[in-house]
């Protein structure tokens, strides 16, 4: 556990002493809950259509794949046409792009970002290195199989995938969402223990709460 996460007594600027227990005060101890589709078929269909047509990507370039994100948003391949845009904060994003290999250090941050996103949320693995390690299959610092650590809806193969491939991938993702098969968030909540076990087996120094909203 990091020392700033431990229980301690803090003396405020006004001299008033109070105890801080970050795990209780700053985080929510409650485990994630599956948010099942509750509305009728038609309403859910409408909602899924809306979700598919307005995909907000979290602007988190985890690897080399991020270099092809910028052409994606610029005149040649204008992804805004398809309702895709960047959000700088995980709270407002629906799609987490794992753009390339994930070192264990980044995996920790990616997990936090993913858990702070609001359901329904989607994960797209970009590049061969998220599928089976790709070039770095024997590296000591990158994970090889992304879908062991977070629920992946779609993989886009290639090293690195061209923007055309990304656009095609987005279209496939839209199809998946509209067919309401993209229930990754619920899958994550249901198999929470399994995912956590995998994550902790890779991240040797687990110094954060198990689930951080």
């Amino acid at each position, binding site marked *: 556990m990091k020392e700033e996460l431990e229980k301690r007594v803090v003396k405020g600027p006004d001299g008033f002493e109070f105890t801080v227990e970050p795990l209780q005060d*700053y985080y*929510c101890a409650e485990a994630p*809950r599956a*948010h099942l589709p509750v509305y009728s078929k038609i309403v859910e269909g*409408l*909602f899924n259509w*809306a*979700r598919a*047509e*307005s995909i907000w990507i979290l602007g988190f370039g985890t690897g080399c794949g991020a270099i092809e994100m910028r052409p994606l948003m*610029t*005149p040649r391949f*204008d992804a*805004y*046409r398809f*309702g895709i*845009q960047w*959000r*700088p*904060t995980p*709270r*407002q994003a*629906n799609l987490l792009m794992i753009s390339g290999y994930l070192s264990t250090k980044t995996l920790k941050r990616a997990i936090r970002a993913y858990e702070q996103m*609001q*359901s*329904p949320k989607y994960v797209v693995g970009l590049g061969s290195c998220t599928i089976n390690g790709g070039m770095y299959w024997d590296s000591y610092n990158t994970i090889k199989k992304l879908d062991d650590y977070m629920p992946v809806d779609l993989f886009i193969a290639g090293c690195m995938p061209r923007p055309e491939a990304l656009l095609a991938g987005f279209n496939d993702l839209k199809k998946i969402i509209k067919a309401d098969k993209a229930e990754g*968030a619920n899958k994550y909540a249901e198999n929470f223990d399994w995912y956590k076990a995998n994550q902790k087996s890779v991240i040797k120094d687990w110094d954060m709460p198990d689930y951080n*909203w």
Partner: protein
Amino acid sequence: MTFEWMKIPYSLLTLFIVLNYGLLMTAIIAKIGARAGRRIGIPFYQNYIDLLKNYALRSKITHGYMFYLGPVFRLTGGIGLLLFVPTIYGSEMFSNLSFSGDLILALYFIFFGTLGMALGAGESGSPHSAIGISRGLSQVTMAELPLTLAVFAIALQYQTLSVTEIVAAQQGGILHWTLFTNPLAVVAAMLAFLGSMMRPPFDVVIAPQEIPIGPPTEYHSAYLALMQTNRVIFPVAKIVIYMNLFFGGASSWGEFAIKVFLLYLFSAFVGVAFPRFRVEQSIRFFMIWAVPIGILSILLV
């Protein structure tokens, strides 16, 4: 005089029209901005989808009561601003709940949303929100000052505090507009307009490269949708005020649409071409340019 209850459904109708108009207009403005970057840009119905999607998100988390109330306050500011000024001059149907003192109330409502936002985002506990709030309050205050001065100048000029009467005084030909009868006040007010539109060069409050993305950092799903709704209503309502005070109001929906669109386009064009000021730079800018012009306009009246 007795209050006519018929006004309420009329006002709601106004609200509805303005909401849809705002959604479409902002999308089209975004397309125009995209053209500057040689892009095609979002489809014109994109705002509706985003709104629907944000309402449709399944999970919400909260950081406390004020966190709930922040977007509500903001939306109240926008709607109140819209409801208490006449949207269409001369039409009983769309003059809304305007009364003889509504100018002061409008000034208050312009500021109201920001304050509510400050309370809400302060509760969210994200340091970026806190910084954004401190920037936002100082900058909006500075941007309000020239507007207030300009409004006082107008009020003195027309000897009234009722927007309706001000509009009435501007009827009859383009030369009767405040734009020509009191240009200094209009200049000061337009600078304030730029300052409060959250577009470059005055968008340091929500600058994504520095404090992603300022006050709304922690807001998501339905809260965000509320704020989106406000982001389309509030500018239109503000522009309605400007239109009424300075540009002779609108006597029909068509005139309304054209004038609002042009005024919004003005801020959008400036926004496309400029990087953003730092907050103390923008404050200095207002102190040096906008405020003296406003004072001058008062003195000249």
